C-alpha cells in the first residue's frame, strides 16, 4: 500500500538555526499538508498546498515557515529561525482531492527538538 514518507525521523537543532523537513507524498496525490503536534497536545494544521501554491494556512504558519515542492516527488517545510516552542512532531499528509471530507494520509512524522 502506498504511504507518505518523511525524513528525518528526528531532528535536533539549536535555537535560531534553519531546518528543512522533507516529505514524499503518495505519488498520485495532488494535495499536500503539514501539521504539527506539540507533546501531549492536539494535532494542529499548519498549511495546505495545491497546484504549486499555498491553498490555506493557519495563524501558526507565520513568516518563519515556508513550503516548497522542489521537484515532482518531494514536499518540504522550512523553518527559517527555529524557536524553542517549535519543538514538536511535524506530520506531512497528502490526499487525492482537497475537501475536508477527503481522506488524508499521514506520514510517520519528524520529531523536531530545538535546544
Amino acid at each position, binding site marked *: 500500500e502506498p504511504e*507518505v514518507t518523511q525524513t528525518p525521523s528526528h531532528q535536533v537543532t539549536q535555537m535560531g538555526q534553519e531546518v528543512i523537513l522533507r516529505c514524499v507524498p503518495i505519488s498520485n496525490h495532488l*494535495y*499536500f*499538508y503539514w*501539521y504539527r503536534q506539540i507533546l501531549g497536545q*492536539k*494535532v*494542529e*494544521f*499548519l*498549511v*495546505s*498546498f*495545491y497546484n504549486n501554491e499555498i*491553498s*490555506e494556512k*493557519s495563524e501558526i504558519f507565520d513568516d518563519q515557515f515556508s513550503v516548497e515542492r522542489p521537484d515532482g516527488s518531494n514536499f518540504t517545510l522550512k523553518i527559517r529561525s527555529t524557536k524553542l516552542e517549535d519543538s514538536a*512532531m511535524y*506530520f506531512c*499528509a497528502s*490526499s487525492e*482531492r*482537497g*475537501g*475536508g*471530507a*477527503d*481522506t*488524508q*494520509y*499521514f*506520514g*510517520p*512524522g519528524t*520529531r523536531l527538538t530545538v535546544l
Partner: protein
Amino acid sequence: LAKTTQPISMDSYEGQEVNITCSHNNIATNDYITWYQQFPSQGPRFIIQGYKTKVTNEVASLFIPADRKSSTLSLPRVSLSDTAVYYCLVGRAYSGGGADGLTFGKGTHLIIQP
C-alpha cells in the same frame, strides 16, 4: 466549520465492544463525518467515514442518526492494540478549489485493559 465534542477519555477491556459518541450540532448539509485513529508518536490514520445511517468496514462501524447532529464510532471486540486516541472530524465534500486543512480536537483517549 462544525465544532465537534467527544469524551476526553474512555476505558474498556479486551473483547468488549466500545462505542465513542461525538456531537456535531452545527453540521452542514454537505459535511461528512470522518474518524481518525492515532497511536503515540505516529500520524493520524483514517478509520471510517459516513454521511448518514450506518457504515461498516473491516475495522469499525459508524452510526449516524437522521438529524446527523451526532455520530457513534463502534469498535467490536477491542484488543490492547486498539489503545489510541480517536478523533471525530466534520468536513465538506470536495467542490473544487484549494485544499482544506483538517481541524483536530483533543480526541478521545481510549485505553483498553486486559
